[in-house]
């Protein structure tokens, strides 16, 4: 094979990224859920309202935000400042007062309604504001907060949603092609267990604390009389407010996750990336929290494409379709390095949504413990049988 000329290399490098990167989204949605009732869970509603204001600030419109508030703390009789919700003791920003659109309120925030919302199995008369009208090019940011535990989250002090339920709902969304990529963020006790059961592709998950760890509140307001924000959300907001000033910010999720300090957060936040195909340092924060879409250019782009294909063929590469050109570019694009066969196959496998998914990635490596656990259970049952036999023998003696 002849080495390509530097010119063709340069031309190849101009290939529109539409062929290579399969992460283009054309809409941004956010689903923000708080699941707790009662006055002393003020901070959970403040958490959700803080994320609501953040995504609005970065451009997502109310029509693409589903805000689920399980209780009305702003109008709770115990609120010293009626009609307001604050997330900081300085009471500088009222999160509730102006320009707010709550879609599911009070007792409408239930497990059933949440799953129906995600999977779009809603009654036909559901208003548009209560539906998640996403398609296969929508990026969704899902934020949940409340009281949780090992693989469950408590809704309204009355019921629970389990990690399996959410994982299955996400798989339904994948099969119905309802999302392009998803960022799942959860701030509860033992939060990381909630995303351990996901098995659908293109989901990035992050949680506030590991198994057997609690998540803590950050500080209390001594006039409102309750804690007003949780630590994990507080430090997320701190990063977002200081670094992501507007929708044109180029900060990536890797930057955000690197800013997490388990000492300050007082619990170990976790990130799950195995289902997500892009490298975190290439994922902009505004891909999920902002409303920035990529533009697909018709016409000139396509011509350039075909010209380059012809060029590549004339250079001697055996190109049959866009994918191979992409591979070829990758092979020589990075400073002429030759890439190995295995890496090629891997990229092959991850490229394109037409490929079928191989199966759920194993996140927890505790399957060896399972083996010994099974041995011990079998042993216990065996001891019971032996004991029964022994005692029945006694009678005959």
């Amino acid at each position, binding site marked *: 094979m002849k080495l390509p000329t530097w010119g063709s290399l340069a031309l190849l490098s101009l290939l529109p990224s539409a062929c290579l990167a399969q992460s283009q989204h054309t809409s941004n949605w956010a689903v923000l859920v708080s699941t707790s009732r009662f*006055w*002393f869970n003020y901070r959970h509603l403040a958490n959700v309202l803080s994320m609501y204001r953040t995504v609005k600030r970065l451009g997502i419109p109310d029509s693409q935000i589903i805000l689920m508030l399980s209780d009305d703390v702003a109008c709770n*009789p*115990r609120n*010293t400042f009626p009609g307001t919700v604050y997330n900081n003791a300085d009471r500088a920003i009222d999160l509730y007062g102006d320009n707010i659109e709550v879609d599911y309120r009070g007792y409408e925030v239930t497990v059933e309604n949440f799953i129906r919302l995600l999977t779009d199995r809603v009654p036909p008369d559901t208003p548009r504001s209560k539906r998640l009208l996403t398609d296969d090019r929508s990026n969704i940011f899902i934020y949940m907060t409340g009281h949780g535990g090992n693989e469950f989250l408590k809704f309204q002090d009355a019921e629970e949603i389990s990690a399996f339920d959410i994982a299955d709902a996400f798989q339904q969304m994948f099969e119905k092609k309802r999302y392009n990529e998803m960022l799942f963020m959860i701030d509860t006790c033992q939060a990381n267990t909630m995303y351990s059961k996901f098995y659908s592709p293109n989901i990035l998950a992050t949680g506030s604390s590991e198994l057997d760890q609690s998540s803590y509140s950050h500080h209390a307001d001594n*006039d409102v*009389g309750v804690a007003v924000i949780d630590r994990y959300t507080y430090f997320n907001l701190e990063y977002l407010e200081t670094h992501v000033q507007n929708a044109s910010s180029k900060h990536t999720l890797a930057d955000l996750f690197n800013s997490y300090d388990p000492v300050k957060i007082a619990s170990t936040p976790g990130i799950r990336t195995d289902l997500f195909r892009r490298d975190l340092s290439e994922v902009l924060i505004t891909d999920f929290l902002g409303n920035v879409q990529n533009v697909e250019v018709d016409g000139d782009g396509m011509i350039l494409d075909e010209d380059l294909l012809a060029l590549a063929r004339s250079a001697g590469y055996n190109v049959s379709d866009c994918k191979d050109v992409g591979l070829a570019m990758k092979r020589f694009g990075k400073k002429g390095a030759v890439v190995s066969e295995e890496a090629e196959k891997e990229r092959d496998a991850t490229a394109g949504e037409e490929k079928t998914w191989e199966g759920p990635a194993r996140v927890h490596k505790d399957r060896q413990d399972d083996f010994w656990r099974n041995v011990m259970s079998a042993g216990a049952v065996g001891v019971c049988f032996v004991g029964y036999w022994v005692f029945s023998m006694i009678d005959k003696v």
Partner: protein
Amino acid sequence: MALRVPVNLRKNLSVVLYAFQGLSILAVIVGIASLFLLPLDEYSRRTYISENALLPGQVHAYFGGSEQNIVRAFRREVDSLGNSTSDVVAERMAEIFRSAGLKVGKQRYSYKAAGGEYSGENVYAVLHAPRGDATEAIVLCAPWRNIDHLLNEGGVALTLALSRYFKRWSLWSKDIIFLISSDARAGPQAWVDAYHDLHGGDIQSLSVKSGAIQGVVVVDYPGAYHRFESLHVIYDGINGQLPNLDLINTAVQISRDQMGLRSELQEMWGHDDGYRHRLRTMLRGMVNQALGHSTGPHSSFIPYHIDAITLATHGDGGWHDEGSLGRTVESVFRSLNNLLEHFHQSFFFYLLMAPKRFVSIGTYLPAAMLLAVGLTLTAIRLWVDPRSRSGGEKKGEKKEEGVVVDGGPKRELFLPMSIVIGVHFCGAIPFAVFNSVDYKSMSSTFNIFVAASLVLPAIISILMTTTIPAHRLLPAFHLSRCFSLLFLGMFLSTLATLNFSLSFLIGLFSLPLMFARTTPDSIPLGLVNSILLLVTSPFAAVFAVAGYWGLGVEDILKEASFGWWVWGMWTPVVVWCVWWPAWVVGLISVDSGLVMGVLGRK
């Protein structure tokens, strides 16, 4: 299949008898010892707030500053009314509440007990929560005269000032009721009975009401203006019922951690959290619980499952004043305001040893239960004992093997049953007598009754000894003791779950009944038994209580009568209808032994 054990129990019952005797003594010893282990660190726990909603001490309290001038002005008002009659006082208090913009109600009441009349007029005002739904209420109470009959100047003045102060806040989720009761004992009882429509004839109904009461705080700050040192938290209720521990923990945590005000329990000033102080606090709490009397206005609310405490000031010349107390009350009320349901998360049965140290029922119940178990085991032993059988053989040793189970002399049940049941019914006599006698004749009535209690069992025992043949006499006393101890054991174990201290103390006093038996062979032993019984009799207990409180016997009996008529106190019922009959049966057995020994009958 025959059970191959070394001893054939049918042949040799004495093994069983000794085993039971040993077990019952062991149970009693372990029970009493376990009570003394409770103050140790290993068996007691630090208090903690169980209800997440309370959030005590997390909110700033702003009472103070110019509000203190208002409190002082109201102090002058209260002082000027110090000698007025209750209707003048009530009218003036009602005027003050009306000027604060609250709805006012007044209530007259009158109780008759122990030949005396207890009457007065309560005044109360209802602050409707502006954003609440009026289904629940919390009460701030100040008695006009506190439980020591001192004028509660500071308490009433603070309540009046707080009523104006609370009216200015709009963050109440429950209605607040400000109650100024005429006194600390009968007034609150009349009010809470009428609030729940359970009042008797001579008590006026309430004209203004609110929702279900969730919590009550009583303020007791008597005397002319002085600065106080510490806060005395009083929590004992009627019949030994206690408020939810969370309410006490909230008050203690707020006063100590937020206000820097030391809190104390059971009049233990200067508690050093050592073993002896903890034990004394616990025992004082037990005495209050056993007597089941009202220790403050809060006690009347507790039988209605309303959690209530009294905050009384203590000490002269400290540096806390009505501002501190006002802020403490305000912070407690903000915590009560956060509640969504009745207190239910924390303990209802506990013993407090220090403001931050307690044991719950799971740890202290064995003490009283083991005493009751000891009595029951003794009763079982008495039943199994061959001496309970009347018949030809004296000792009942069975010499032949293979005796059919129900062969041989049977137990005669009629006589012992009738003794026990008859004596228990007689227990109604002292109960009725002491509840209807005048205060002036209490002392003499009591003396007559003591004499009768000593003489009548002697007469009964003489009658029985002379009329019943000897071979039926011993078994009769044996079985009557058996039934009496069985009943006492069962009753005490049930009572232990309701009023642990009463059960424990009665069990303690009844221990001689386990040993006091009919001993016709040995007169000295009989004398020792009867002295032991006298020393641990109900009368001795009454004298002991009188001595403990420094009052006369007639005062104790007057309190008991007042308690029955006004508060529905059950302690006199237990003492006269359960304990005294058991003691009488024991005395009859012992006296019979003495009589038989004297008359030479065996």
